[in-house]
């Protein structure tokens, strides 16, 4: 018999069955700080573009991926160079590869303009890896795809960088970027206090994933078996000839 469990009981004991696919992402009861700021707004907009309010994936979604992960830097160190340049080193830890998914795109979204009291900074990011091919959005060729990034932020494609230099490495993998800012005017060199700056969320990494060929084939096979059962008319149900 199907009995729907009491919802109050579940709320008191929010343990998750280990067999639930969704449960693998669940953090512990002691939850870290709820995300805020532009990273959260970016992902909420991505969600609204890709799914309706009930969570059904939109048929005309253009995200091009089954899974998108936003990673914020885990550590940063500030260095003040001579003159008007300030450098922040950002480390993005990359979790181990999931067998069922393959990386199809990687971009970094960063603030290219910082407005502080009395000072304006112009910023860009550079991968720590030499000879790393990158591409900014929107491209100079004029892509028809509207940018999903607000004016104060820019998006840079680093797919080639990650796939060629980092993705297939074993062990702990960290993507290191340099966030470089220059004062736009004024001779006085500003000594920025980067400890407060990290809360501004200056950059984040986006990884886009799709099913691997094997997992996509397995899903197609499962759906095909269902369709075969639909088409198959049980002999007991056939109309009398």
């Amino acid at each position: 018999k199907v009995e729907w469990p009491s919802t109050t009981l579940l709320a008191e004991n929010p343990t998750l069955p280990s067999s639930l696919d969704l449960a693998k992402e669940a953090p512990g009861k002691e939850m870290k700080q709820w995300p805020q700021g532009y990273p959260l707004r970016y992902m909420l907009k991505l969600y609204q573009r890709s799914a309706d309010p009930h969570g059904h994936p939109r048929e005309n979604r253009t995200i091009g991926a089954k899974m998108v992960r936003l990673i914020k830097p885990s550590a940063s160190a500030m260095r003040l160079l001579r003159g008007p340049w300030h450098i922040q080193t950002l480390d993005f830890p990359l979790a181990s590869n999931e067998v069922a998914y393959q990386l199809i795109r990687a971009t970094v979204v960063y603030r290219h303009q910082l407005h502080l009291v009395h000072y304006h900074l112009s910023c860009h990011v550079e991968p720590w890896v030499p000879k790393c091919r990158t591409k900014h959005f929107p491209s100079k060729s004029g892509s028809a795809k509207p940018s999903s990034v607000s004016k104060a932020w820019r998006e840079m494609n680093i797919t080639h960088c990650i796939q060629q230099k980092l993705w297939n490495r074993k062990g702990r993998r960290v993507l290191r970027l340099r966030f470089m800012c220059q004062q736009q005017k004024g001779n006085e060199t500003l000594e920025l206090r980067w400890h407060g700056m990290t809360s501004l969320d200056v950059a984040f990494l986006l990884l886009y994933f799709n099913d691997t060929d094997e997992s996509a084939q397995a899903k197609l096979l499962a759906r095909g078996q269902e369709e075969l059962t639909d088409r198959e008319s049980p002999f007991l149900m056939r109309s009398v000839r």
Partner: protein
Amino acid sequence: QTCSIASDVPCPSQEQDRSVNNQCSLHPYKVSFHQLGWDHWIIAPRLYTPNYCKGICTGVLPYGLNSPNHAIIQSLVNELVNRSVPQLSCVPYKFLPMSILLIEANGSILYKEYEGMIAQSCTCR
């Protein structure tokens, strides 16, 4: 069809006709992630409509229930031959995916399409 021709095949009784409304079917059901105790890590959506299947799986099974031949035969065995052979259960047949936005244990934000989240149709099996 055969009950009116063959005398040894019982025809559906009036009682069975009245139970058509209790036949295995899909029932809408909505729950919030807050009720499940998951709202501390699921950002969107707020509400989840998994639906559920409920109803009896006895008597003449409607064609649209997509029951395989074995299920139909087991139902007949239960009714005509041996009551200890279990009756069929009304369970989900097809499912729809659902997109979820959540916070991972390391603080990353994840958008993911999960398969098999919403019951779309039912079957007796």
